[in-house]
């Protein structure tokens, strides 16, 4: 401790210094203004009042609630209720309007898109991707190829009942596991793979395609159609387009013929209100590229016929991998 009598006095101001010095700058020992002290006492008084009014102290089984009974959770719940009321008009319109009306009306469409985007992000993005771009085994919802149809009504129906979902009217398609269940042997699976590759207009082994033609007619044509364009009613995919749910390379196609995989989509009926399901259908439809199926059939069929007829150029090509 420095004795006060020894403390240095600043010449310029006549004030004692604290004795602290930083690079020649000394600290004057001026008294603090009294009002500063009052502010300090005021904050202590404020904290006492705060403890009494607001939730403050933790306990073993809970906490002190305070006289005002303030609760952030209750506030949020109240705000959400207020939001429901605010959205009420649009919500009601979503329930009554048809899907086509919703998409045609700019305001209603904007509302449906906003609801759809948020519901999609919370529930559908896990499998279909944040933007609906899909992944292997999970259909891409942004293109123009659909297993069960890409019209507004068909999309809404799919969302409602799901696929292999346990819903009474669920959509189900059944592709047999041709290889695993011994319906086709390994050689036949390999031939069939070449046949499917040829169906999509790519170069394939002519001999294998020839061997598989009868097998295809016997085993596959019932669902996928004689020309491979698929069947919407059964959810049988079009094999002539560029879209491959489980991959386009030979390995993936062979694996699919061998195992006959099929995905599962839950039913959303009962989990979302009809209005929300409609909004979701509009959102998915608006972000998709429509449905190419009716027109694509004829074009693709012609290409397939050409490939199956085995033009010379296609036959000689080695497998791509």
């Amino acid at each position, binding site marked *: 401790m420095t004795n006060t009598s020894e403390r240095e006095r600043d010449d310029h101001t006549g004030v004692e210094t604290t004795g602290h010095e930083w690079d020649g700058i000394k600290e004057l020992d*001026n008294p603090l*203004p009294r009002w500063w002290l009052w502010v300090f006492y005021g904050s202590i008084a404020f904290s006492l009042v705060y403890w009494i009014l607001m939730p403050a102290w933790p306990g073993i089984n809970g906490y002190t609630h305070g006289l005002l009974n303030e609760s952030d959770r209750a506030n949020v719940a109240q705000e959400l209720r207020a939001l429901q009321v605010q959205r009420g008009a649009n919500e009601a319109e979503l329930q009554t309007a048809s899907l086509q009306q919703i998409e045609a009306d700019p305001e209603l469409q904007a509302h449906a898109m906003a609801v759809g985007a948020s519901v999609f992000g919370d529930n559908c993005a896990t499998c279909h991707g944040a933007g609906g771009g899909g992944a292997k085994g999970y259909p891409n919802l*942004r293109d123009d190829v659909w297993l069960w149809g890409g019209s507004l009504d068909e999309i809404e129906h799919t969302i409602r009942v799901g696929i292999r979902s346990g819903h009474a009217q669920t959509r189900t398609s059944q592709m047999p596991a041709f290889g695993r269940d011994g319906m086709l042997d390994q050689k036949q699976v390999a031939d069939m793979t070449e046949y499917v590759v040829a169906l999509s207009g790519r170069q394939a082994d002519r001999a294998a395609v020839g061997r598989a033609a009868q097998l295809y007619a016997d085993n596959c044509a019932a669902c996928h159609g004689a020309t491979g364009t698929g069947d919407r009613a059964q959810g049988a995919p079009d094999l002539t*387009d560029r879209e491959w749910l489980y991959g386009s390379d030979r390995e993936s196609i062979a694996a699919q013929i061998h195992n006959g995989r099929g995905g599962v989509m839950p039913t959303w009926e009962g989990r979302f209100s009809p209005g929300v399901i409609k909004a979701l259908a509009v959102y998915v439809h*608006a972000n998709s*590229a429509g449905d190419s199926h009716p027109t694509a059939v004829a074009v693709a069929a012609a290409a397939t016929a050409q490939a199956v007829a085995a033009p010379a150029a296609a036959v000689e090509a080695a497998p791509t991998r």
Partner: protein
Amino acid sequence: MTTLIDRTKPKPPSGEAGAVSIAEQQREKAKPKGLYQARVPIYPKLVHGRWRWIKWALLIAMLAIYYITPWIRWDRPGDLPDQAVLVDFAGRRFYFFWIQLWPQEVYFITGLLVLAALALFLTTALFGRLWCGYACPQTVWTDLYIYVERMFEGDRNARMRLDAAPWSFNKLWRKVGKHAVWLGVAFGTGGAWIFYFHDAPTLIRTFWVGTGPMTAYISCAILTFTTYVFAGYMREQVCTYMCPWPRIQGAMLDDQSFQVTYRYDRGEPRGPHKKGTGWEGRGDCIDCNQCVVVCPMGIDIRNGAQMECINCGLCIDACDAMMDKVGRPRGLIAYDTDAAVAARASGRPVKHELVRPRTLYYAVALVVVAGLMLWGFSQRTLIGVHALRDRNPTYVVLHDGSVRNGYTLKIANRNFDDAQVKVRFSGPEGAVLSSPGRTAGQTLILNVKPNQVTPVRVFVTAPEPAEGVGGPQQAVFDITAGREHETLPTAFDYGDATR
């Protein structure tokens, strides 16, 4: 260099003798007993003169602007507010007569603040702390409060006597009256503030029947409290202890800055002057203490430039009045520069340099920022479009190999009417635009509502690229709305070329 003297502590005992005045007693009482020091009461005396007159005029003008502005009406179409100046937090808009700013354009406000700061720097470098002395709300409201105080309690001497006197009915009603009017002024201050944030004629009704917005009541209460405490009690302590400006000013001032200056070359040696005696061998300062008693900051300007001095010029008026009385020329205390005083003291010619590197920098910076602001404002479009590329998926391959990219156009229509926006896309060969509910084509015509941002989903579909072409390609959105035209560079992603 200007010397700033820190006088936040009580003055050291000095030779300023004379009878122990009431002020001296008060000062004695305020001496620190321990760690804390009470405020030294200041009783500024009323003064008349040029600067006091300017201060009154500015006070009236600025209070008038403050109180009247929210009541000016300005016709706007539809449901938009008819208030000329309105900060509409709920609607996220700032209205200023014909200008409407969105939160996205808050940089104009930032620019204004930068401009104000530079103007402050320039003014301070040239003429000292004029802002503090004449325009700062703390100064204006303190002046108003002292005026009220004087109405009830009289001028300096009467107020000092009243404070020293024991409690009586006379003292009571004067004190009660003063505080009542102070509170009224404080409430009027807070009450006027809230009109800048809500429709004034509506709020003045709802406020009194208790249905006004909670923020209005809280803001009004806070401003009432701060006005009452800051202008009534804290006064010069706000400037000395709370405001950073007095501490920063030293960086802007130099010995060519005009400040309230005691011309010691002319005043010293000071001393009382008897009528009829001569002025030879002595200075003009008669030590009448008038400059000290009128000072709202409680300082003695004769000690030189000080951190507390707000440059208000009241001591100039007081000194000029005394000089008139004793028959000496005015201007013993005046707006002057340190350099000029030093020059006079040493007999050199006085030279004022308004143009010097410091003022030049500030002026150039001011002009540049003002120019940028004007340019920015003249380039401001009423239709603003942002193109956001979809990040997931970045591209989608369709059944025939064509590639589709998704974009969200955020179209801000700052007009008060519907707007038609024409969108074109150029980049990949054969690209076609589409939007939900609209057929595909080379051009999209979008109708957007006024005074809001409309997000529009836009898709671009390009035919299957040639062999080897893939990945992102440069592309451009061309936006035309009325006479406004905007090009937004973006990208079109063909995706994996080797698929």
